């Protein structure tokens, strides 16, 4: 379990980090390292340069930003899981964070590192999609804001440009909506075989709107549009039928633990459970 040779730099500012990132085509950012370092030890990843973001001040926070909650990219899963601000304003992200890995992973892993890695079975993407979150990225040319729906683009890939790094994630307050994250854990890895995040707004006993993000099923997390549309203006009795469309049109992945067909089935089951739970959850 010995990685290949690499150079290591620990910049003290985002600008320095960006400059380093541009200095090498084979640079990787270290932001927790709970996916990257195991991959390096197995020599599945052999970056020439490792840029440690851990020494840059001011990248770890959870704070109010108008109608949103802003999180620094280096905020750990544990901090997100335990944030009182998120608990009162936007609890879905905390729910997802609580189900990531184990205590050690949650204490070291960061939200920026996780979403930049874009593991198809990671938990955050489902929640960020359902929340219509925004990802703030900075590069040499400045800062831009990427909607979550435009961020995850494929297997371990995002729309981040080379030379860009994530500085902040912004999630809206979900006051008035019920939220839930329902997850079927892989027994070995703890990743989501299927994870469904739901944000549901009710009006006079019917579903006013539903936002559903699903991870684990396809090569990247997606919004379950067909199910969402089928839920609108429906009573509780129609949830199961609507949620059966959770993986409609999705090209599902399969492996020796769960086939594509089974994952699509689980997506429907966990979609229903997440929506029901969200409806029952206090807004």
């Amino acid at each position, binding site marked *: 379990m010995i990685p290949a040779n690499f150079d290591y730099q620990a910049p003290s500012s985002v600008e320095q980090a960006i400059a380093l990132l541009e200095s090498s085509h084979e640079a990787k950012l270290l932001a927790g390292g709970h996916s990257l370092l195991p991959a390096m030890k197995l020599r599945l990843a052999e970056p020439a340069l490792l840029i440690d973001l851990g020494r840059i001040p001011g990248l770890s926070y959870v704070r109010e930003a108008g109608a949103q909650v802003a999180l620094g990219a280096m905020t750990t899963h544990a901090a997100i899981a335990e944030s009182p601000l998120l608990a009162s304003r936007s609890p879905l992200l905390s729910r997802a964070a609580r189900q990531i890995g184990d205590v050690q992973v949650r204490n070291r892993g960061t939200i920026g590192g996780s979403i930049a890695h874009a593991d198809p079975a990671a938990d955050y993407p489902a929640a960020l999609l359902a929340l219509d979150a925004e990802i703030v990225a900075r590069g040499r040319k400045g800062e831009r804001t990427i909607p979550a729906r435009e961020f995850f683009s494929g297997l371990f890939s995002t729309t981040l440009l080379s030379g860009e790094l994530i500085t902040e994630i912004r999630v809206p307050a979900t006051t008035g909506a019920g939220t839930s994250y329902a997850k079927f854990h892989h027994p*070995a890895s703890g990743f989501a075989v299927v994870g469904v995040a739901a944000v549901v707004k009710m009006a006079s006993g019917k579903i006013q709107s539903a936002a559903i993000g699903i991870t684990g099923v396809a090569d990247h997390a997606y919004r379950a549009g067909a199910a969402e549309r089928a839920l609108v203006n429906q009573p509780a009795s129609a949830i199961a039928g609507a949620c059966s469309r959770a993986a409609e049109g999705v090209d599902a992945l399969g492996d020796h633990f769960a086939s594509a067909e089974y994952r699509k089935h689980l997506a429907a089951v966990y979609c229903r459970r997440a929506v029901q739970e969200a409806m029952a959850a206090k807004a």
Partner: protein
Amino acid sequence: MAIRSRKTGKPAPRQMAPQGTLARAPKKAAERGIAAAQKSRTNGRPEPWVGRRYLRKEDPRLIQGISHYADDLRLPGMLHCVFVRSPHAYARIAGIHTGAARSSPGVVAVYTASDTKALGVVPCAGALPDLKIPRHPVLAEGHVRHVGEPVAAVIAEDLYQARDAAEKVQVEYDPLPAVVDPEKALAGTNFVHASVKSNQAFTHQLKNGDVDAAFSRADRVVKARFVNQRLAPVSMETRGVVAQYLPGEKTLTVWSSTQIPHLLKTQVALILGVPETHVRVVTPEVGGGFGSKLNVYREEAVVPFAAMQLGRPVKWSESRRENIAATIHGRDQINYVELALKKNGTILGMRARVISDLGAYHQLLTPIIPTLTALLISGCYKIGALQCDVVGVFTNKMATDAYRGAGRPEATYIIERMVDLAARELNLDPAEIRRRNFPKPREYPFATITGITYDSGNYENAMKKALELAGYSRLRARQKDAWKRGKYYGVGLSTYVEICAMGPSTAMPAGGWESGTVRVEPTGKITVLTGASPHGQGQETTFAQIVADIFGLTPDDVNIVHGDTAAVPYGIGTFGSRATAVGGTAMYIAAQKVKAKMAAIAAHLLGEKAAAMNFSAGRVGTKKKSLGFGEVVGAAYVARNLPPGVEPGLEATHFFEPSNFTFPFGTHVVSCEVDAETGHIRIDKYVAVDDCGNVINPLLVEGQIHGGIVQGVSQALFEEVIYNEDGQLVTGTLMDYSMPKAAQVPEFILERTCTPSPVNPMGVKGVGEAGTIASTPAVVNAVCDALRPLGITHIDMPLKPEKVWRAIQQARAAAAS
């Protein structure tokens, strides 16, 4: 200060002696403090240490991380070894180019088969008449036959250099089609070993009684096919070897994470051609083995070979990926079974065919393991006639060998699943059909249809207790209610017996005895040397408890030394739940010999009879006249006033040969709920009543049961080594291979019954594997019981959610059509 009663069930602190007394007068502590503390509770009779929930002496150093495993060893000038391993399941080696690796920074040597072909081979202790033992070289010669097979060893100044250089060893492979499915392999013409000209490694038949007659008389015959999947042992500490050769002294020292230091010493000497007198094997701390370290591995020869070639110490530490690919696997059988039954549930006869996937090469006990399945296949039942045919098959996989239970979990799974299927066929309660086929307590020693003799037992008693604890009738009521509501709730039983204390030498490939030496040191402390090789079981504690009682001392006065062939007389090692029953007995008898000598010396000094000498609370003598323990010891060593004919010194060694195995037993009851929508299984209740004879330390027995149950539940639900159709190892890391986690297992409700073994003086049986053996069928029985309304009779392990979900889907589709 009062010692807490063991009846309270609370663990008593290890420092049971009064602290103040110890601090003020350490030398007298054993004589005064303990006695004072104990007298208050036991009417003057000191409470024995045996039977107490005594905390492990090993734990402080292990928990603090201040002890030493193989990987912690740092020797001056030590080099590091990394193996280059086959990425192919089966391939011809067309060439190996080591030049780039040899010129890589820090590299001292690169070895391949051309360097090691003159060495001996990896040993196999199997002795079946038609057993084929293909050459098992220490590095691959000509072909690689499984993923992970070592092809070259790179030795460098540091581990990083060795690892980088290993990437530069270029091996040209001509891939060959892999032999993966053992049933197809038997009929196929693609051979794992061309020299054997067959993939059949051996056959073995166990036949007793008129089987055909039993089946022709039967009211019903129940048939099944079971897959007992391949498992990886995954001990917490992987393997590791450090070797040092001193050219002047010509001595070779090998530190290895092994369960069998003495057998390894002999085999290393034979493989390397070094006189055994000049080989020393030491086991540092060993972080678990579960049988996977009851072996002699290629690396245990290559690393010492390199150390001898280079005249410098060499270390190799196994990575987890190597551990999953190239340390032995367990189980991997396919079973075809038939039971002949009378309407009342009486088992008239049994037929079984055991197809054992051996992998590519025999390790030490590879062919022996499935024969143990045959030996135990009748379980705890009277069966009129039996035919069991075992066939071992070569495939392009890592070898299977002893893994916790080793052949017995497979047997127990077969018979316990079959009995459940029979109960269902005959519409009998699963507990009732078992009760009807148990031997009665008066029938012990009980001769089984497989030809062995169960030493003692009372199966009905343990089952009754387990059913009571589980609230069996309430669970059945809950099940009925669940079924009514369209939910799937099941109750599963497993009544098991197993074979421990391995075991008489006549039944073992390389000796079934054990050695024990007890030496009372001049300061009055006791050193015990045991041939057993504890690697997590806690025998430094339990053995000390036993010896402390014999001499009237405390466990802290006794130090257990093991795992150093230079210090300890030849022994066999720790496996097959043998350490306490065989090794403990050797030590017990040796201690009695020393005690008798001390009694003779004390009696001589006191002018009393030796038979009147009582060893209690640090004193030796009678109630009226006694000497301090240290005074008697002093007399033995100063040797100026010894009884006539008594030699100086206080040391005895005993080699204990058991007359039989021991046969612990018990009943486990599991209830579970199956989520029909997803196939997910939740264990609701787990009750285990185990009988391992007399108990030295209940705390450690419970620990063994806990761990065993978790491993067995994990086989039922999670674990599976998967090779795909190309022989590639799909579950090569712990991201894919599902080890159980605390949150995935239920709380256990444990109880014991106690039926001492007549085979050894302490009446102990062994408990290391019982939990693993009992739990697996109990869980599968519970799941299949839950799914009864759907007409599902069997699902093969592991009961992964998708598999269960598909079985439910199919059953529903079949019912609808």
